[in-house]
């Protein structure tokens, strides 16, 4: 089943944020990108819990950068989307597109 899984709502948002940020994607930038785009305060715990789940599924990969003084000597953990992750985003998009096709969502529900 894992090869045909769709992304959950927050997983989808996180993967899209990673794709936007490219090689600058780590906890702070991912959180800020989501807040900037969807105007909702997101907790860093929620971001990491989702990223860890995505990593377990093989949709993202992470590596540690160098420790920096502004982080109290702690390193950044950078994330990037794998080919499997890109395929999952595409699959989820296609599913959503086919479900919304023909629906006039804004006009009929506003």
């Amino acid at each position, binding site marked *: 089943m894992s090869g045909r899984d769709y992304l959950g709502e927050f997983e989808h948002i996180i993967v899209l944020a990673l794709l936007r940020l490219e090689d600058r994607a780590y*906890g702070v930038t991912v959180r800020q990108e989501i807040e900037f785009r969807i105007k909702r305060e997101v907790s860093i*715990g929620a971001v990491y*819990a989702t990223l860890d789940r995505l990593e377990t599924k093989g949709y993202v990969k992470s590596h*540690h950068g160098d420790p920096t003084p*502004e982080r109290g000597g*702690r390193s950044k*953990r950078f994330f990037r989307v794998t080919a499997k992750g890109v395929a999952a985003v595409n699959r989820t998009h296609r599913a959503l597109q086919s479900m919304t096709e023909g629906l006039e969502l804004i006009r009929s529900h506003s």
Partner: protein
Amino acid sequence: MTSQADFVQPPRIAVWLVNLFIPAETAESILGDLLEEFSHLASNSGVVDARSWYWRQTAKTIVHLFGTGFRAAPWSTTAAVVGGYLLGSVVNGLPDKVLSAVTDRYLGYWSNHFQAYMFWATDGMWIAHLILSMLVGCMVALAAKGREMVATMTLGIVLCAMVGVAYFAWVAKHWPMNLALSWMLFQCAGPFAMIVGGVVVRRHRSAKRTQPSGA
């Protein structure tokens, strides 16, 4: 040039709380990210806003980590909680039994030291109850490896919920208000001591993890 914000540290209690719930493998990243954003906020919006943001993040992160911690290992966490509940039921009666046995054995001594007897029968019982509850919390935390706080807090919440139900269903209706409230406080002190036990084990494990190996 260094600004005032460079010297500002996030709220220590908030950092401590995040540390309790955070998985060991993500601790460095999460605490580093929080500190980085806190420093930026303190420079741009002021220390008060930054502290308030840190506390909001702490609360949300703890709630989230609590939920994901439980969902990650529901069966082992439930087993630790149920085991802790059963162990707690067994050991809670121990102080009474010990007191009766000691009273019977040293009846002469107690009759000459009635104040001491009264201390053991009231405050002593309470202290013993708290110590045993804390030990139960430690056992639960030891069993729930990596999810010490999730397991002990779940047990504490379940026990407090049971106390709350008993309070509203029976005690508050039939007992005088002051007696009912002190009963509830006494009953809730046990679950709180269990959580303290979880904190002790968690802190001990965190300290061991951060110690340099190869000694």
